[in-house]
């Protein structure tokens, strides 16, 4: 099993095919979308592949250490040009192919006109822990 992060972006990903802001959908289309997302997570719980899912507020800022005895420096809210993460789902699946398949299904969530959004999702493998047995790889 390997864990993958499916990242959804407010900004920074290539434009979706069906790229209409949500407040321009009909209320029914919004309900259909929310229902699809909930069903997707519930289905992955059912298959034993769901780990976590969270949404992030669009506001935020950068922070860094500014030296002993000084308060941290902040920069933000994020500039319009910055990549902005909207949320994520963590899945634990048997193969890379399965992770891609699931990301594709998530991207098919319905949007304006009830048609799939075709949203670009970022798929990132977790760096897992080192295996106990490495001999079989020929360099143990």
């Amino acid at each position, binding site marked *: 099993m390997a864990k993958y992060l499916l990242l959804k972006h407010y900004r920074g990903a290539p434009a979706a095919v069906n790229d209409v802001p949500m407040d321009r959908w*009909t*209320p029914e289309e*919004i*309900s259909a979308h*929310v229902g699809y997302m*909930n069903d997707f997570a519930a289905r992955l719980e059912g298959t034993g592949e769901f780990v976590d899912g969270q949404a992030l*507020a669009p506001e935020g800022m950068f922070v860094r250490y500014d030296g002993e005895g000084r308060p941290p420096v902040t920069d933000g809210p994020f500039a319009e040009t910055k990549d902005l993460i909207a949320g994520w789902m963590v899945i634990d699946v048997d193969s890379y192919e399965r992770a891609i398949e699931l990301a594709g299904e998530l991207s098919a969530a319905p949007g304006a006109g009830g048609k799939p959004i075709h949203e670009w999702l970022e798929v990132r493998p977790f760096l897992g822990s080192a295996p106990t047995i490495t001999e079989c790889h020929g360099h143990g």
Partner: protein
Amino acid sequence: MNEALLRSLTPSVLGILVRRGADFAAAEDAVQDALVEAVRVWPADSPRDPKGWLITVAWRKFLDATRADAARRRREDLVDEEPAPGPAPAVDDTLQLYFLCAHPSLTPSSAVALTLRAVGGLTTRQIAQAYLVPEATMAQRISRAKRTVSGVRFDQPGDVATVLRVLYLVFNEGYSGDVDLAAESIRLTRRLAAAIDHPEVAGLLALMLLHHARRATRTAPDGSLVPLAEQDRGRWDTASIAEGVEILQAALALDRLGEFQAQAAIAALHADAPTAEETDWVQIVEWYDELARLTDSPVVRLNRAVAVGEADGPRAGLAALAALDDSLPRRAAVAAYLHERDGDLATAAGLYAEAARKAPNLAERDHLTRQAARLNARRRR
């Protein structure tokens, strides 16, 4: 086995151990161990005197733990004097426990966790699940909290207001995991109300009951929020409303008004209206004026603006809103609502979209996005 009964015995058993000389932290661990043992043993062999059983087992757990701890050898004198088994002392330390667990030296999250465990009898795992943090994190939070209050004398009088804030926080957390925190906080507040005669304790209990009565109608089957005006009032829990109103009236009769009584009065006026249109908004505005006098909170003034909008029209509501800071959470949502009622759909739609971007949780965000979408769809027609 009745888990509610078991957990309701927690504070008095813990109080008795502390009175016998156990320090709070060790006694609290011992009571938890005894609760776990009870869950294991009682289904097959239920004791005739559950409280006596818990006291005996918890005290034994305490002795075992203390004896095992070589660094605590100096306590041997104390623990060897095992008190004779017999009826539990009549004195109830429940109130002292509430004060200790909500001690001002604790952070709100620590006070919440400690209260749920030491007074509520929940396990660390249940509390962790309810607050969506790892069990190890919650265990650390609880043990740090116990260390923080370890120097506090058990018989010191505490501050009711801090206890009420903790219980209010628990209630507002609602429902997640396998523990119903709203029901749990009502149980704990009911217990507190039985231990101390205080109008604000009664006010908080009434407030909780009146809100809890509407719970089934606050979300649609698909999980989306249903605003107060659109809730199915026929499904409100009338027994819970009647109890809340009765408790509130008794508290108000004492003539020592506080913010929880005022909030409960507003909730009672909503509960009392057969339809949303029949809501007595004039009286609700008066209660918000009382609340503003008591707390001077900007959140109160925001809610007051909504009430003014209903009582005197949306323009009056917008005028009340104008004095409030733009950065106030949910201000955009209130402004959107008032502009919609005033017939300015374009402004309202824009404000709903802005409010959605600033929403503090997904349910509210989805709700506000739907509102913006509804108005935009209407404007396209």
